[in-house]
């Protein structure tokens, strides 16, 4: 246990652990010192100066985020001088910021806006030079608007420390400082993985997703198209937060009901195609395992991981499963099997995916995912975009009565549900692979080894007397560490799951903005979202992908068997090295 020290905050005595900063100590004593560049999971920058406090005996105001608390220290957090100084600091930030709050994507959900309100800025006193930059829309996933950037550096630290991608950094100096990709190149041409975590940590709208909602509204009104939508597992675990509902409330059926009210003709569930992925991926793994194929086999569901693979690990392409992601599998089945069943022209089907993810937008435009020249997923929107559409269309999401998904592509097992949490794909795959391999039913189906938020999880699973070494990484920084291990000792693992976002898809770059009392990467929030999915799995009477009767029917009527010629044509893909080549530096280590 840490030693205790005595400090005085605003003339009241407190006992706190030794070794804390003033800000952390104050947090424990019930004072939330205003802050902007600080983030508990990232290194301390001390850039914004919003968190200044007065310390008796120290001449200047000090930034509480990076000033250690010490025994006998007398701290003041809310004096007249401090309030004035803090107000000026925030006002100076606002002075070099576009005054377009009412037309901004983050209106009502912006930390700068909240801070300006809390500091009591009701009138602007300064008017100085303002920076001007073009909006960068070169990426299919993430829009960069440097004019809205306040240089807090959270995105830079996120990309560097947690994700280990280093797609962005500070360039130039002083007033001209800007957060930009190397060589000021278009964001879409950089080493960006499209994970969207920069959006999650940005306090303003300097990073946002490429927004496709207007295009989608138009298509929903175009009656010449049959509109089909799928929602990913993690969407239902978080969308409620955008409507101020409690963390971790599963809104599966409410979301299905809202999608129908938005005008979709068919509402399907990505969990169905997650089951399909398990059939293919589980079989692929067993084939590699039994016939001496390339191991370790690494999962391929996560598009930000696939981007990272092609940019950073061109030497390991053969290790990654050839399975497409559940999203692309669903879209392909919709435009083939489902179109045939319903006698629809695939060109007149508009396939929409609601994902917790920005990188899925990038995946959907990859030419490898086209079927016979036709785009398989026509549009991808994030959880945030769907929440906005629901609000914009005037649908009473909070009080809506839940509805079931449509058949046949709406039925799923519990294994499909847990895809949305780190470790879930591994757990789901093993539930099926075990039975395919041994012919016996797995009794203990909840795998403790793959659950929880430890950065890299390892385990040994015994299948028919053989030991299977598995590993799970979430957050690309952890993926880098794990890949490093594999390069050093290629025989160490048999099967690896990688998810680019901390926590897996539940912590995706397209999830609702953090509400007032939670932060991105907040383990409590991630834990509740995870529990929403694990709870769904426990409730389901079918918990193994191969037991899903609609999956069995799809194979019987259409695909024949896993890894069949038809499966390979529709459900598998290939990877190729990408330029510019990524460079791994300062490998991020996630603390959650």
């Amino acid at each position, binding site marked *: 246990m840490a030693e205790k020290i005595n400090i005085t905050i605003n003339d009241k005595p407190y006992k706190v652990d030794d070794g804390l900063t003033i800000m952390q100590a104050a947090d424990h004593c019930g004072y939330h010192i205003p802050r902007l560049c600080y983030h508990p999971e990232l290194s301390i920058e001390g850039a914004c100066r919003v968190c200044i406090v007065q310390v008796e005996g120290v001449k200047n105001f000090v930034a509480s985020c990076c000033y250690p608390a010490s025994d006998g220290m007398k701290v003041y957090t809310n004096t007249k001088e401090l309030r004035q100084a803090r107000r000026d600091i925030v006002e100076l930030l606002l002075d070099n910021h576009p005054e377009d709050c009412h037309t901004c994507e983050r209106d009502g959900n912006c930390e700068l806006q909240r801070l300006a309100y809390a500091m009591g800025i009701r009138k602007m006193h300064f008017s100085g030079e303002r920076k001007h930059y073009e909006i960068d829309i070169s990426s299919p996933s993430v829009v960069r608007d440097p004019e809205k950037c306040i240089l807090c550096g959270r995105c830079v630290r996120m990309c560097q420390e947690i994700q280990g991608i*280093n797609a962005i*950094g*500070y360039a130039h100096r002083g007033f001209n400082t800007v957060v930009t990709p190397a*060589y000021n190149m278009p964001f879409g041409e950089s*080493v960006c993985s499209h994970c969207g975590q920069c959006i999650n940590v940005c306090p303003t709208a300097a990073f946002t997703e490429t927004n496709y909602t207007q295009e989608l509204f138009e298509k929903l009104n175009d009656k010449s198209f049959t509109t089909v939508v799928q929602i990913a597992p993690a969407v239902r675990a978080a969308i409620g937060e955008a409507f101020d509902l409690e963390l971790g409330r599963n809104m599966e059926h409410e979301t299905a009901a809202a999608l129908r009210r938005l005008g979709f003709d068919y509402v399907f569930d990505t969990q169905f195609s997650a089951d399909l992925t398990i059939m293919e991926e589980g079989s692929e793994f067993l084939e590699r395992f039994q016939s001496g194929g390339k191991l370790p086999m690494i999962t391929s569901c996560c598009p930000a991981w696939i981007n990272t693979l092609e940019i950073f690990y061109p030497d390991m392409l053969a290790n990654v499963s050839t399975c497409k992601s559940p999203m692309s599998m669903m879209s392909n089945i919709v435009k083939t099997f489902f179109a045939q069943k319903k006698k629809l022209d695939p060109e007149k089907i508009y396939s929409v995916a609601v994902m917790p993810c920005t990188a899925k937008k990038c995946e959907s435009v990859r030419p490898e995912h086209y079927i016979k020249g036709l785009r398989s997923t026509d549009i991808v929107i994030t959880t945030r975009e769907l929440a906005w559409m629901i609000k914009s269309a005037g649908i009473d999401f909070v009080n809506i009565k839940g509805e079931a998904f449509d058949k046949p592509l709406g039925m799923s097992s519990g294994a499909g549900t847990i895809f949305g949490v780190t470790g879930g794909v591994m757990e789901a795959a093993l539930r099926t692979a075990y039975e395919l391999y041994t012919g016996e039913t797995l009794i203990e189906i909840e795998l403790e080894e793959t659950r929880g938020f430890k950065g890299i999880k390892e385990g040994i699973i015994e299948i028919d007397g053989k030991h299977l070494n598995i590993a799970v990484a979430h957050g690309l920084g952890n993926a880098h560490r794990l890949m490093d291990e594999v390069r050093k000792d290629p025989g160490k693992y048999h099967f690896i799951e990688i998810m680019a976002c901390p926590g897996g898809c539940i912590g995706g770059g397209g999830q609702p903005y953090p509400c007032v009392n939670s932060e991105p990467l907040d383990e409590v929030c991630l834990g509740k979202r995870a529990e929403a999915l694990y709870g769904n799995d426990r409730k389901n009477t079918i918990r193994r992908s191969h037991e899903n009767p609609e999956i069995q029917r799809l194979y019987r009527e259409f695909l024949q068997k896993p890894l069949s010629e038809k499966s390979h044509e529709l459900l598998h893909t290939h990877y190729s090295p990408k330029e*510019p080549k990524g460079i791994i530096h300062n490998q991020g280590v996630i603390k959650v």
Partner: protein
Amino acid sequence: MQTIEAGKIEELREFIATILKSDYGDSNLISVLHKTQELFGYLPREVMDEIAQRMSLPTAHIWGVATFYHYFNLTAPGKYVISICLGTACYVKGAAEILTVIEQELGIKVGETTEDKLFSLQPARCLGACGLAPVVMINDKIYGDLTTVKIKKLIMDFRKSEQHK
């Protein structure tokens, strides 16, 4: 670039290899960038990519350092680099007027290069030739006691010498 500058690239590679042997080798980025500018006259993007690979430093990081320091050129300098002294002595002796004339004659501002890649213009803070103020340095040579007429002629002479080649 690879064929013409192969010797220079090789020299830079050796320089990086030596530096990486020292403790905290990758913290010597600035000296590597200095060496690059010494060899190439500026920091070509391809060379920065090469440095990134060899030093395991992300390009975004290298770009940050390269743009932070005014010393580093990010575009190829002209054949003749004019450094105009704006130090105190030169300034009181009329450096501002000299600068205006140069800018008008070349059609560029400080920090830029002419389209024909013949001239670059950069500011200098005292070249240690205050007795000759106002002065400019063109490549390695000092030209002193300048007037607006003399500087015009100087630029014209450089242009003429190029035409005769």
